[in-house]
């Protein structure tokens, strides 16, 4: 490797480019790096937002390890992530396989399934709240009553909470995954399928040995971004399940990591503790994403 060029000539050559990067870098530093660094620092302190922060070392993290509500939030989040990522990815792939053509019906269907992704998530959540409206006038309960069922208290039944959250997330997110998969499918050369057909491969064999392996980079991407998004679930809990005095809904059945973080930081003045939760969440996501990338062996393709 050649040694770096002298600073002067590099500046002359790239000076304008650096200058053009400056505004972005300044914003990036002020609104991303700086708050990030602050939260890392705060995670080692006791800070109520008003009085100066007091360094407490690893106190926040040891307390987190013994916090039953945090463990509960972690468990809920894990279930939710597993459900929404697995179902979301499978359905995205299914939709992509069903509607990957260029004909009009396919385009219309793709647009329909993609619509939730371009709608404001707050609006979607408010709509779900209406669908799940507890009295028999809610849409979900109206449908239930067509089949002769009694009105279900959707939002006050702890066992239904995570399935509902998964349903909302899959419904809202599968269109996005579908579009990625459609692009992935389009990039698989038709010759591979022709060759396989000539060799007598069945449709399933073609899917299993050509489509799936060649979609691996897309799958990795869909799973990793899905994981990150699912771990950070917030609006759904905050808008639909939050009670008057309890962020996690009935019996904390909807308590997830980010709502818990928000609750601790912004309604209980524990900003140091909340920062510690944020960094634990970061570590979890980081490790899971690394594992995923390794398993997908997709580092090079991405």
């Amino acid at each position, binding site marked *: 490797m050649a040694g770096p060029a002298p600073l002067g000539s590099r500046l002359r050559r790239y000076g304008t480019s650096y200058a053009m990067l400056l505004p972005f870098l300044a914003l990036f530093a002020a609104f991303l790096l700086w708050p990030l660094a602050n939260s890392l620092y705060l995670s080692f302190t006791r800070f109520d937002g008003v009085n100066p922060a007091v360094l407490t070392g690893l106190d926040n993290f040891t307390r987190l390890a013994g916090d039953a*509500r945090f463990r509960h939030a972690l468990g809920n989040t894990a279930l939710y992530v597993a459900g929404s990522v697995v179902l979301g990815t499978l359905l995205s792939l299914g939709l992509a396989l069903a509607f990957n053509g260029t004909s009009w019906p396919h385009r219309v269907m793709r647009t329909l399934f993609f619509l939730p992704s371009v709608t404001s998530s707050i609006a979607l959540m408010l709509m779900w709240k209406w669908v799940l*409206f507890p*009295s028999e006038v809610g849409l979900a309960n109206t449908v239930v009553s067509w089949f002769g069922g009694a009105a279900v208290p959707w939002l006050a039944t702890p066992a239904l909470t995570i399935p509902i959250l998964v349903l909302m997330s899959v419904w809202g997110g599968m269109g996005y995954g579908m579009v990625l998969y459609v692009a992935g499918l389009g990039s698989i050369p038709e010759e591979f399928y022709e060759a396989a057909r000539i060799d007598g491969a069945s449709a399933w064999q073609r899917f299993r040995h050509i489509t799936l392996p060649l979609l691996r980079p897309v799958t990795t991407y869909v799973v990793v971004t899905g994981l990150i998004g699912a771990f950070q679930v917030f609006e759904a809990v905050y808008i639909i399940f939050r009670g*008057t005095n309890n962020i996690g809904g009935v019996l904390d059945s909807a308590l997830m990591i980010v709502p818990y973080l928000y609750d601790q930081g912004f309604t209980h003045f524990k900003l140091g503790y909340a920062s510690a939760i944020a960094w634990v969440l970061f570590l979890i996501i980081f490790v899971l994403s690394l594992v995923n990338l390794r398993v997908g062996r997709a580092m090079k393709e991405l």
Partner: protein
Amino acid sequence: MRRTLAACSTVLVAALSAACATSGQTQTRQADQNAPMTLSFWSTGGDDETATFQKAADLYHQKHPNVTVKVQTLSWDDAYAKLLAAATSRTGPDILSGGMTWTIQFGARGAMVDLREHGIEALKGQAQPAQWESAVSPDGSVYGVPLDMSTLALYYRTDLLKEAGIAAPPRTWQELVDDIGRLKAAGVKKPYSQDWGNLDWIGYFNYLYQAGGTFYTPDCKPSLNTPQAERALTYWVDLYREHGVPTATVEGSDALDTGTAMVVAGNWIALGIDANKPKLKGKWALAPLPAGPAGPTTFIGGRAIGVTSFSKYARTGADFVKFMYSDEAIAAVSGEARKRNISYIPPRPDKIVGGSTFTPDQARVFAEAIGTGKAAPGCPGWDESASDVAKQLQSAILGKSDVRTALAEAAKVMERNAG
């Protein structure tokens, strides 16, 4: 690898400098209280409510031409976080209003002025004693005083009660249970439900005090391990489990509209019913909550108002807070609230019938509730415990634990958080 290292060290360096940059707070220098000044008042609630308080502020300006008070709306959803941000940066409102315990919490962290320095206790005699008490910090500091009140009532469908042959709304726990039975027998599918406080400690609050119990003893020892608390929770749980009260929360006027015969709901829904549900006009009325073995005690909430410690106009701010209790300020606020058809119960019990926005009949019901009312516990550790207590109550209601265990668990949490 080198890049990762560079990124890590950047974050680390920034974190260290963040540590150095966190500054301590300083005492806010007071400005000349006679020069022209503009105070900002962040009011938690809706824009209509802001407009009603602005009327009082305008009146204050007429009397003190050098003082302008600008009222701004903070919505309930993000008010707390915004006030926290204001307190952190020590910039923002001179005066703020919000939930009853907020001023205590901000005050405990040095963000509010102790209004006793400005002679606020002159107002104490005018306020509802229990509500005033709930605004006072455990150490006796007064960082905020009640700005208005809210309470609960039993809203009922006069037509449905009549069909079931019930002449008057239930006055006692026993009558409530009997009436639920009679309504069911008459074919009413949803005899009773709870809006405000459903599955929550606020809902339990009423039953607890009506049975003679309390959350804490007067010296702030948790007291949910009592026979009264058990009796209250047993009755409440039975309402759900034996009498089919829905666990799902439906807003009060929606509940009445969709055929619920009796709903426990907050005072703020009363004025909207006729306007939003025209079909219900003339078919509903109000009554105080049915009384328990120890009486009819009802929860009183409301908003507290206080002056921030980072205000340059603390004395004027405190004077404005006192002004909000004057006859003319209450008249100005309620006049505007009437025009806008929104709920307002002044912080002075003697003004409820004349100074609230309700019809005299409705106002009398609320005045009766407030007369015997009690407010949220102001004991140390309650805010920390509230959601866990609610969780224990929910587990009893949903049949996941029995009443005694749930209360014992709740008491344990309260004990732990009391420190």
